[in-house]
């Protein structure tokens, strides 16, 4: 190892939330100030613990009170056409909230796949229904497109939920809600299973690692 270490502040916050609390500028400032103060230390090693947990670790997360009832999601969905039709209806319910959220927030995280939502839903439909003549499946980089499409779909759903009053903002509740309650997650899981069946290097990687988080795989076993 030819480099020497940076000064480091360890934080206890969930992976993906290194500044702790969303929309809490005082808390974020505290984290940054503590980290930058380490620059004054004359000698090392400097690996210090930040003393506070973020708010979601201090209180039990609220259960999402989603106004749309997904409790009818079947345990086993054997008919792919039915799943895709139900997903389409679910997506429409969320899209109206998503467009409101985008307007309210003045920003969106959607866009990494460079596909419109119509194209994205068609991509998944064509992929899962084995429509080999589909233009959407033809070009190179299909595994990447399937992965980035899943990211856009998740962003759409999470942003839609954020526009509804009284919804949770903690990482664990949101992940459990999406992967446990939505048909979008069921569709992504079907995409994952098909990627594994195709048995190419890119599809195998996507199926094993890039579509469903390790922490949520237990739902689909």
């Amino acid at each position, binding site marked *: *190892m030819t*480099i*020497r*270490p*940076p*000064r480091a502040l*360890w*934080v*206890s*916050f*969930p*992976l*993906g*939330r*290194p*500044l*702790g609390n*969303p*929309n809490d*500028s005082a808390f*974020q*400032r505290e984290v*940054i*100030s503590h*980290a*930058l*103060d380490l*620059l*004054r230390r*004359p*000698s*090392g*090693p400097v690996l210090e613990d930040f003393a506070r947990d973020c708010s979601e*670790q201090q209180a039990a997360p609220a259960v999402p009170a989603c106004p749309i009832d997904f409790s009818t999601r079947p345990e086993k969905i054997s008919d792919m056409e039915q799943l895709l039709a139900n997903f389409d209806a679910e997506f429409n319910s969320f899209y109206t909230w998503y467009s409101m959220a985008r307007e309210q927030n*003045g*920003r969106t*995280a*959607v*866009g*990494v796949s460079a596909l419109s939502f119509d194209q994205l839903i068609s991509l998944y439909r064509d992929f899962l229904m084995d429509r080999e003549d589909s233009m959407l499946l033809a070009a190179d980089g299909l595994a*990447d497109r399937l992965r*980035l499409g*899943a*990211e856009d779909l998740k*962003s759409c759903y*999470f942003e839609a939920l*954020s526009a509804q009053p009284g919804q949770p*903002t903690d*990482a664990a509740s*949101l*992940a459990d809600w999406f992967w446990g309650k939505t048909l979008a997650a069921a569709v992504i899981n079907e995409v994952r299973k098909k990627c594994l069946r195709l048995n190419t290097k890119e599809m195998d990687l996507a199926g094993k*690692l*890039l*579509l*469903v*988080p*390790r*922490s949520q*795989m*237990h739902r689909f076993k």
Partner: protein
Amino acid sequence: MVRLKQFSEDERSHLLKLPCPVFETTPFVPPITPEQARIAVVSTAGLHRRADRPFAVGEAGYRLIPADVDHDDLIMSHVSTNFDRTGFQLDLNMVLPLDRLKEMEGESQIGSLAAYHYSFMGATDPRQMEDEARTLAALLKYDQVDAVLLVPV
């Protein structure tokens, strides 16, 4: 990162198997005073502007983010699906705290904020990023940056 005891057994076992490098004990740079320092942010969140190219699996490169970037112009194409993205969706400052650093610059708690900031995609083995990191270090020097706030996800 959240405490190991808060992970599932599978996740904990995976993390404990990751290599953990041993460093010398000397700090990377001599001490400096934040109030006089020009600060840049380097994120590993796989962030980039919409017009830029998404990160690919195994990519070691970085993407450029100007200090005055519109929040709506930044998206995240990190290849890992295993970390929370909702924090970023709720508040860009959760992974790229430019607004907080601008406030601190305004209150003279840091010397100045750099003109450009950068994002890598943290799923790539850091050893493969060495060439890109050296290039970036030269660019940071050119921007007269004294210290970098490394923000991993």
